[in-house]
């Protein structure tokens, strides 16, 4: 056994030789046809089926103890209460791609009826979610979608197009008629949502209406308060003429607002984007922030729970055009690719912010 380095060396070179031999011919990207898609719902939908009671509905957000996802799952808890089901909340401490898989496996073992999940990685969770579906568990994604062939429906908080446009519009309003330099403070560099919104926003900025706005930088605060604070600071050091920071993440916008409100840039640099009213209230009242937007996150969890219950009861299968009732939110229709759109985002200003508590 590997007695001397020389033996080791010859073993290594033998391995390399094998590698070389197998190099000719094999499975490549082009020859590969991925046939490993999940089980498809085969049963027909019965729109008149009664909602079952006692359904086990589990929520798996990107990570626990994130104020935003706490509100989302809180809405889900209310809905599960109305449905007389069993609510459960589990999740990892870090928002890494693979840490959710162990939790999905656990939920399969516990034989839940519905898993409502916000995917940290659209593909990494796929094999597990398909195992769940094979075990007759309905999979609803919210917040951040998984690949569409491994979930039954996706609760879309708003269309990507709608959010991107609204971010660009708010940036222009804040910069004023003279325009100027703007910067984006995003979450992690691989956050699915944020990246697609920024993409749309960039397309919007190419339009003549936005000719006076110049996007100078997209910075990443990793959805970490301290990192976001430092990134906001860094942006103003690198771009002293910056007019607006657009933060399409609740952690980022709060950190940026905190930095601006305590610095000499207050009143000169505007902060806008997507934020939680409770976190932003003081910065709206001290005039650091004049306007930001968000959908009501509690409604997302609420809608997801109702969609899951409707599916587990056989009312819907996730096919386009099917309709179901979601309690206080009213009736929803499933769109293409199993997407259910919540509705347009709400804009928060000094005038209306006190009406919201989340």
């Amino acid at each position: 056994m590997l007695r001397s380095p020389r033996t080791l060396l010859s073993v290594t070179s033998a391995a390399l030789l094998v590698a070389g031999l197998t190099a000719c011919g094999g499975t490549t990207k082009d020859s590969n046809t991925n046939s490993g898609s999940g089980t498809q719902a085969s049963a027909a939908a019965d729109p008149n089926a009664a909602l079952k009671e006692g359904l086990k509905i589990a929520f798996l957000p990107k990570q626990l103890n994130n104020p935003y996802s706490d509100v989302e799952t809180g809405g889900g808890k209310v809905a599960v209460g109305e449905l007389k089901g069993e609510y459960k909340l589990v999740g990892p401490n870090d928002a890494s791609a693979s840490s959710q898989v162990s939790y999905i496996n656990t939920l399969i073992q516990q034989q839940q009826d519905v898993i409502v999940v916000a995917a940290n990685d659209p593909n990494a969770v796929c094999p597990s979610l398909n195992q769940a579906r094979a075990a007759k568990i309905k999979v609803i994604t919210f917040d951040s979608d998984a690949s569409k062939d491994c979930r039954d429906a996706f609760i879309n908080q708003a269309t990507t197009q709608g959010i991107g446009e609204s971010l660009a519009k708010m940036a222009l309003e804040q910069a004023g008629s003279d325009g100027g330099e703007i910067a984006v403070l995003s979450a992690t560099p691989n956050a699915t949502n944020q990246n697609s919104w920024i993409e749309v926003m960039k397309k919007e900025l190419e339009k003549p209406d936005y000719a006076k706005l110049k996007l100078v930088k997209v910075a990443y605060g990793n959805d970490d308060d301290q990192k976001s604070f430092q990134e906001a600071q860094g942006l103003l050091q690198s771009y002293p003429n910056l007019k607006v920071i657009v933060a399409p993440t609740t952690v980022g916008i709060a950190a940026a607002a905190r930095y601006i409100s305590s610095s000499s840039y207050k009143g000169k640099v505007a902060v806008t984007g997507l934020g939680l009213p409770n976190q932003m209230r003081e910065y709206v009242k001290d005039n650091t922030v004049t306007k930001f937007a968000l959908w009501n996150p509690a409604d997302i969890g609420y809608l997801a729970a109702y969609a899951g219950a409707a599916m587990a009861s056989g009312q819907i299968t996730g096919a386009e055009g099917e309709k179901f009732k979601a309690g206080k939110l009213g009736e929803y229709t499933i769109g293409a690719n199993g997407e259910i759109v919540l509705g347009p985002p709400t804009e928060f200003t000094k005038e209306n912010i006190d009406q919201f508590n989340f």
Partner: protein
Amino acid sequence: MSDTRPAWRSRLTGWDTIIAVLTVLVLIIASFSVENFGTSRNFTFMVLDLLPIILIALPMTMIIVTGEIDLSVASTLGLTSSMMGWLWNQGLSIETIIPLCVVIGAICGVVNGFLITGLGLPSLAVTIGTLALYRGLAFVVLGDGAVADFPWNYTGWVTGTIGDGAVPNVLILIVALAVIFGIVQHATPFGRSLYAIGANAQAAHFSGIRVARTKFWLYVVSGAVAGLVGVLWTLRYSSARADNGAGLELAVVAAVLLGGVSIFGGKGSLPGVLAGVVLLTALQNALRLEDVSGQALNIVTGSLLVLSVLLPNITTAVRGNWHRRKLRQAAAR
């Protein structure tokens, strides 16, 4: 150890035996008291969860026995995962990519080995450096994107079981590698030389052991195994990403120490480490099935680790006291 007790008794009271008994106990109790723990599907899930930790722990045990450490393993994993995605996008066949990734891992190990044994730098500092370096390179290769369209027959093999039964395919790999590493570590002169190096590198050098060369090859093997795990990780999650496996090095070192390997080198056995990995994974799995939150889970595993370092020290101290008292009594007579 200046222990005069018979070999069988010191083996029975050794830390690795205690940890093995504890592991079996946890498995039995969990099977009876935790719902859905003892099912075949849960067994598959557990094996998949411990796969990366157990494989990287094999060479890590040897490295820690020699008194060194390799903290760059998880970043090597991330770099190979990135490279795997990149090479796949370049149109190479998966059959070429897999051995190539193992070689990339080995090259990472060569760099570590050279800096540590060639230049004589401390392994802790070097591998903390390459931990950052390899992870950085991983992001250079693949950026923030992910590659996911790997062939189904490969991704399915990693997550699948033999004949759709209860035994996961990857268990064959774990057993095969564990046996090879076990034999090398415990039944060859090479393996024994590792303990000699860990106990006293200078004495080992003077008794003819090539200390530097041995350590160098350990780092190469460690890198190669981390590369292999990078491949398996990528296939298991069908996702090649630069941030794959981040933080895994701590889980591996924790399991190795829990298995009774001394962080100062010279002491420890592979069966103990295997038991340590199984204990950590089974405990986490069982607690999760019981809906214990992630934070509480961290507290449990953290305390277990502290205990595993503390208890052997206490028992050694107690044993030493007892031994001295007996000597005194003998002298008084």
